[in-house]
């Protein structure tokens, strides 16, 4: 086996560029996903009339279709259907946010429902309103419980961002493909790409561990 380190060194600047784009898409994706997921999760947990059916449909559609299909749809089909044209970067971030949001709404729903209803009773008995109980009692407990599954979802989202190469976004995996074509050295390039992903997912996992240690799970 002939492994040429020089190929890796030469590719690093381009890979760092790709990794930065991957990081941005992931950040926007999980940020948007957290927002969507928290709202939808609460709607599901409290079974708000009508709205919880809409959320149910959203979660079913996203969970029931491959993320590649979702990306293709947003990038290629949406312009035809609604005359909305998004840049590759915007389409990728939106797609990841919608995708993560569906999974996170289930995480949020589960975390809220796992909090002892007796604590809600105790809060209400004090004279707190429902929103106050949610904000001061149930929310902080649910948040702590959601950290491990959220960490899982964040890592999945980061890795899923690789498939946006199908819509031509120059993220890390797309860079890998370009560099392989340029250099003809698949072994060196894909090994390096894998190491880049590993570093990013590992840092994310450590970050979640740190957060978990700061907020003891109760």
């Amino acid at each position: 086996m002939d492994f040429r380190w020089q190929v890796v060194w030469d590719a690093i600047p381009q890979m760092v560029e790709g990794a930065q784009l991957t990081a941005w898409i992931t950040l926007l994706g999980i940020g948007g996903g957290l927002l969507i997921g928290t709202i939808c999760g609460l709607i599901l947990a409290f079974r708000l009339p009508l709205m919880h059916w809409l959320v149910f449909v959203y979660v079913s559609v996203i969970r029931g279709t491959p993320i590649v299909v979702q990306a293709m749809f947003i990038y290629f089909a949406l312009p035809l259907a609604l005359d909305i044209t998004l840049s590759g970067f915007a389409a990728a971030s939106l797609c990841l946010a919608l995708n993560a949001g569906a999974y996170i709404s289930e995480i949020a729903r589960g975390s809220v429902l796992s909090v002892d209803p007796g604590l809600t009773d105790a809060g209400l008995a004090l004279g707190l309103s429902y929103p106050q109980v949610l904000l001061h009692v149930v929310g902080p407990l649910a948040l702590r419980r959601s950290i491990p599954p959220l960490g899982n979802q964040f890592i999945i989202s980061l890795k899923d961002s690789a498939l946006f190469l199908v819509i031509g976004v120059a993220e890390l995996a797309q860079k890998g493909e370009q560099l392989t074509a340029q250099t003809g050295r698949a072994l060196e390039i894909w090994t390096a790409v894998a190491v880049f992903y590993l570093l990013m997912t590992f840092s994310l996992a450590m970050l979640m561990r740190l957060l978990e240690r700061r907020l003891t799970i109760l």
Partner: protein
Amino acid sequence: MSLIRCDKLCKSFAGTPVLKDVDLCVQGGEIVVLTGRSGSGKSTLLRCLNALDVPDSGTLEIAGHKLGRGQRSRQALRRETGMVFQQFKLFPQMTARDNVMLGPRKVLGLSRKESQAVADRLLRRVGLETESGKLPAELSGGQQQRVAIARALAVNPRIMLFDEPTSALDPELRGEVLRVMQDLAEDGMTMLVVTHELRFAEKVGTRLLFLDQGRILHDGEPSRLLREPPSERLRSFIGSIYSD
């Protein structure tokens, strides 16, 4: 004026009637002990009084506030009552002091400093001033229940509701909770206590209610009811408690 007045209160769960036409009137300063077999409806009655369970029919009035539809009227009722639960139900992420402060801060709208003063005074009253920085998990069951009493008192309720406050405690820890409750009674607090502690009923209670199958079967002076039970049901209930 009576502090609690309910008329023909009914409540069922999934078609099973738990309270059947319960009428009750409680005056300020009364210490009412509710007892009866499990499933007799005593806890449900207590939970109806602060609308944690909403009655199916009947009327309820607490300190002049009528229970209507809607959250607002429930909240008004709950501000007049404090509740202590069998399983304590302290907020696990908050220290003892923060547990007691939450009501003054968010319900009464006091400042942080004022709320701290309230919490410190009440924790001293239940004998836990040295434990105020601890989390519930770091306290014994008896200590947790005393914090729970302080938490309920912190919003200045006119009535305290106790739902089997000592049932989850070891015998040696019961005494410390019962003593706090007795102090409270001696200070003139109006109290409704669901319990099987018949000695407490006799010593502290001014009135004993014996519930049976969703109805108030007996309502009278504790020592008289306990010494000369007017029915076979009460007699056998008392017997079953003292046999263990």
